[in-house]
């Protein structure tokens, strides 16, 4: 299993960060994809290269501020669980953590790179709007 984790400290309240990170329909605002569509517990995301990924929304926990999803019905991805946490840093600000566990192992690194890019962008969005 390929396992990666990326994190970013964000100078805003956990609740403020959760409004964008915890909303599965707003992924395209910060993650390097071109669009996303949510229907019930399903999400479809489109990449710049034309690839479309179908995902099951596994968990949206507004108390824990944890979002989990799984890539499904994919000819390459055989196992996947993605987890995004927003954690209170104890000083009124937060840490966003994006974790991926999947097979093929190496694809986890690519999602890790996208997560790094996305978390950097969401930090700019949130800190720029404060």
């Amino acid at each position: 299993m390929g396992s990666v984790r990326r994190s970013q400290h964000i100078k805003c309240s956990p609740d403020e960060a959760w409004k964008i990170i915890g909303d599965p329909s707003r992924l395209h605002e910060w993650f390097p994809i071109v669009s996303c569509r949510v229907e019930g517990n399903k999400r479809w995301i489109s990449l710049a290269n034309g690839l479309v990924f179908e995902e099951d929304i596994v968990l949206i926990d507004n108390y824990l501020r944890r979002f989990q999803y799984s890539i499904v019905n994919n000819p390459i991805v055989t196992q996947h669980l993605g987890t995004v946490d927003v954690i209170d840093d104890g000083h009124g600000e937060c840490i966003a953590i994006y974790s991926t566990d999947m097979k093929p192992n190496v694809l986890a690194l690519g999602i890790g790179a996208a997560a790094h890019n996305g978390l950097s962008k969401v930090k700019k969005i949130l800190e720029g709007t404060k």
Partner: protein
Amino acid sequence: MGRRILFITTDQQRFDSLGCNGGTIARTPNIDALAKNGINYTRAHPQNVVCMPSRSTIITGQHPSTHGVWMNGVTLPVDAPSIAATLRNAGYKTALVGKAHFEPLLDPFQIFAETRMAAQKVFTEMQTSADGTLAPHRGFDHMELATHGGQGSVHYAQWIRENHPEALGQFFMVLDHELEVSAVGGGDTNAPQVKFNEIQREWYHTDWVADRTMAWLDSLGADDDWFCWMSFPDPHHPWDPPKSELGRVNWRDLDLPQGYPTDAATRESILAQKSLHWSKWYDGSFVSNYEAPLHWIPATLTADQVREVNAMAHIENELIDEAIGRVLKMIESRGWTSDVDIIFTTDHGEFQGDFGLLFKGPYHVDSLMRLPMIWKPAPSANVTPAVVTAPVGLVSLAATFASIAGLPIPEYVESPALPLNDADAAKRGFESVLTEWDSVLFGKIIGSRTIHRDGWTCTRMLPGTLHDGTEGELYNHANDPLQHVNLWNDSQHRAIRDDLLADMQSTMPEQVLPLRPVDAPV
């Protein structure tokens, strides 16, 4: 109008592959002529033995500990120093044609410019550089990129798809269904990453790189100063040159390489003397890095497979030499020859059967570290041809380019310009060269630091998954040119070992921390 620079690199080429360095199989007359009329460096080392860190050293003039590309898959920041940017700021027209690889090739989200440019059908992107100004990506006016086949998102792959789609499936498929480096065998011997490629020779990436280099050069004005990095993806695996060219070298006619012990017991005995990761890779029990197939066990490599892989590499090297010859003729036709400096080298070596191994990894021996490097200064510079035996590194290239252009040596580089001869090397303190390895692949951690000095190679293994930091390797090249005898634990050599380690400790740059994230396997 100043001196122009044609910088030629190959990928994963051995020192002994060229006629000028004692090679007897591949015919490389054009490169040999550069060596005869220029400076041939016979002890040139990379600062890391895989592509991304090594190429980042070339463009920044820095060791991996400083530029921060500590393993394949770690991206060189877009605002990192770049000798191409320095030359461009001085008025040079700049291009990189062929393999760049400062950014991951496996990039499904198109985060990185190298894969994004071809998709957007452009040849550069404007980026914010280190001084805050907007400038072309890494200082190149023109980037027209290729990698080892028709897959992926670079200009060559796009060109193949649009113009010769029938050739796309002829290349070896580098990744398997798990996206791991493929262990599939082919050719006559079922050697890993070998395939008979039905592609027409003129569509193969070697000729494409030369064609596109000439097209860019042809776009320049007669009086332009230019820096052109022509970067061939071969002879890096997969070994799938055009089938039409296989008659050049019949693998059945080849002697086995000197570095390949034919007897399995001898191979295993040699490997057992080395640090533990050697034998554990050989028997398939520990694969530490992504640069070799995950599901291939080196112990299964046969003598005939070694012969066939070598034949394929020799063929690829001949094609490269011929492509270089075409570009040099074109430069001559433009009337530029007397003012063009040509530097030829590669980013790292290849086992090609040495020790019973193929590919590369955390193994600091001549197979991977001793590189071909030739500088033919512009005839107008009146530099006397020479052979330089002093140790030098790719880390000196950036300063060399600056010196050719008549520029001050940039503050960001960590090594002076290449010496012109051994006396110059002695005068300017070229005594040793450093090489680093770090890798983390899903919890498997390997690190090492190496110094080569006075004919000795000394490697300290860093604490990691297999090593506790007390292990290492020490080789005396004068007595043991194949590095079969590890003297690390030999009490008679304790003094030289400790002296080399102390020298390494005092000259190795401190690693910039925290380490940047791994964005891809390669």
